[in-house]
């Protein structure tokens, strides 16, 4: 064996090919089957898509690095289920490009955050977390309430998501900007389009408290309120368990 290596280390190309071959095996065995084995991701035909506003909120969540301190993955452990709710299923993040499972809980897990607190709580908490939770070490995000959301390119966002495999329709893409504004303004005449395209369950509220302006706060709170609400598959699994 060492004699063979004695020869191998005399040819650069031989070493290169050997390194690539040896290093590729693990990835192939562990990753490729995840795309082909059907049981990897549970199926839920009723799973809801992120609305343009929620997707914009998700982009803000990534932009501000929230994922560095908050996980969105409840593990199959008793204390986690007791603390956060039913454990996470793969289907829940099947439209998450990229995933936001996280790796660290400096703050709590957010996989089942949606509907747990009011919009007003979230807005106050994001402006100054210590106004709501005195001991919190979360940063303040006050500028989100002052910053108008860029919404003219939301169609492009939905188009790119469609290209990577999320079933957005042409109608959804064409109306993306309008739907984002309508979702945060319950009085608008266009809100019906949102529920037609994204379902009756869609939250249509002035998330930041001001229906006149569409801010980044609207988008982020809309996203936080949908976390764990896209499918009820985990709750059904919990009942069966």
């Amino acid at each position, binding site marked *: 064996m060492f004699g063979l290596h004695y020869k191998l280390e005399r040819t650069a190309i031989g070493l290169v090919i050997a390194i690539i071959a040896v290093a590729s095996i693990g990835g192939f065995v562990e990753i490729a089957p*995840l795309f082909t084995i059907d049981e990897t991701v549970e199926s839920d035909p009723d799973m809801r898509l992120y609305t343009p506003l929620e997707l914009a909120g998700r982009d803000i969540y990534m932009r501000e690095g929230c994922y560095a301190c908050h996980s969105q993955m409840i593990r199959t452990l008793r204390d986690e289920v007791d603390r956060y709710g039913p454990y996470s299923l793969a289907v829940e993040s099947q439209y998450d490009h990229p995933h936001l499972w996280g790796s660290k809980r400096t703050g709590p897990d957010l996989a089942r955050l949606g509907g747990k607190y009011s919009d007003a709580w979230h807005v106050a908490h994001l402006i100054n977390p210590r106004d709501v939770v005195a001991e919190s070490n*979360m940063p303040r995000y006050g500028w989100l309430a002052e910053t108008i959301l860029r919404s003219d390119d939301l169609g492009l966002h939905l188009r790119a998501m469609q290209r990577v495999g999320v079933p957005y329709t042409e109608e959804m893409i064409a109306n993306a900007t309008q739907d984002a504004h309508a979702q945060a303004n319950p009085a608008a005449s266009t809100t019906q389009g949102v529920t037609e395209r994204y379902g009756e369950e869609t939250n249509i509220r002035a998330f930041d408290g001001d229906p006149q302006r569409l801010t980044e706060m609207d988008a982020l709170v809309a996203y936080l309120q949908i976390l764990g609400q896209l499918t009820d598959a985990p709750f059904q699994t919990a009942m069966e368990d």
Partner: protein
Amino acid sequence: MLWGILSLLLAAVGLAFAAGGRGDPIAVHGWIIILAGLAGLVVVARGWSLPEPPESRFEEYYDSPTKAGIILALVWGVVGMFVGAWVAFLLAFPDFNFSGPWTSFGRIRPIHTAGVIFGFGGNALIATSFHVLQRTSRARMPDQFSPWFVLIGYNLFCVLAATGFMLGITQSKEYAEPEWYADILLVIVWVVYFAIYIRTLARRKEPHIYVANWYYMAFILVVAMLHIVNSLAIPISLTSAKSYSLFSGVQDAMTQWWYGHNAVAFFLTAGFLGMMYYYLPKRANRPIFSYRLSIISFWGITFMYMWAGSHHLHYTALPHWVQTLGMVFSVVLLIPSWASAGNALLTLNGAWQKVRDDAVLRFMALSAIFYGITTFEGSFMAIRPVNSLSHYTDWTIGHVHAGALGWVAMITFGSLYALVPWMWKKQRLYSKALVEAHFWLALAGTLIYVFAMWNSGVIQGLMWRTYGETGGLAYSFVDSLVAMHPYYIARAIGGTLFLLGAILALYNIVMTIRMPQEQQVDLSPDLPLAETVVAAGE
């Protein structure tokens, strides 16, 4: 000429981003790229009228890119560690910050991670690899152009990364945050880097490729593989910074941690093992203890690390069989890891009095010890039930820093201290006392940091899973957060000590470079073999 064309091209790409991306943060990057291109043009124009450098330079090693790389590594190191200390203080005192978005915790934290991993570590790897490659091949690098292209292109990537995070440009994949255009730049740089390696090896005057080069090559090849696959994404438009990852959910999580764990393996381990295999025996003046152990550990690490990524996803929605594979390989990985650490420490047998007297060699010896400790800890934490406690807690952060501070940074500082007098033809470093001070600051900082995070991590993990007498969870999440506070302060202090050490290193090395030349240093042992000699030998 080539430089002029490239600078123009770069400026043109920048102009396209700046003009097309109005209203998008990519426009700012457009301006940065234009500036880089214009700076390149100025340099080219100023060099136009200079006389052609003498032919005799081809008889020496090509070291100016290495020299620049050393300085860049140290500067990035100080910046990255400064931001690290800052974010550490923010976790203890969250309002210790400006009010705007640019410097909020979530945006500057990746500047810390990318700054130290890619800025400090990456530049140190490029600089030392050019040095080691030429010396162990006894050949000059093949051309004047490509090493500078690699170094400058790579640092442009680092600048785009760090400024991008402040602007909110991120893919959000941990340790792969830069967006699509920066990713493409890195691929181009990496291809040229690999070409330099292969072309120089083809010119080598030694029949065997030295073990340090195996590691540097594994670092270059596998990082390319990981980077390309994990960063596959569709941009929303060619003049927008934003893209969406090709993968989603569970497949994306597995791809990300296949990348993430092997960035640790091939960027932070293989590359630095290459460094260790050259500078430690050189400084100790001892041959590597065992050639066979090097072979076993090299191929063991190259094969087994690639399976271990799934231990980041224990008890998640990732299929159980993948978790189990990851756990098993992580545990077995201890064998090649300890083979490397043992090989390094046994090489020091017969030179331990030098370790006592020479702080530079002591940095290297200590790094091998920390490498052994950290790899043992890593294998332990990858065991599923242990991971149920450690995952999501500060224990992971402690583990990472035992490796990053104790292993990666220490081997780097040791190697750079050894390399600087050779590169600038000086008899010694500016101050031995400052190296000594740096050593103790680094060791104290690392120990305080790691013990603080071990404590807080285990306490956190235990508090989250403790049940009260009534059968409910005993502690709220906020209870656990309050319990972390003293450890977060201790961690920030440990990190600050480490930062002070790095500042001393930068100062000491700059002063070494500025020291007057005492006498003519004899260059003869440090020259490539001339072409004619080899021709005669063959």
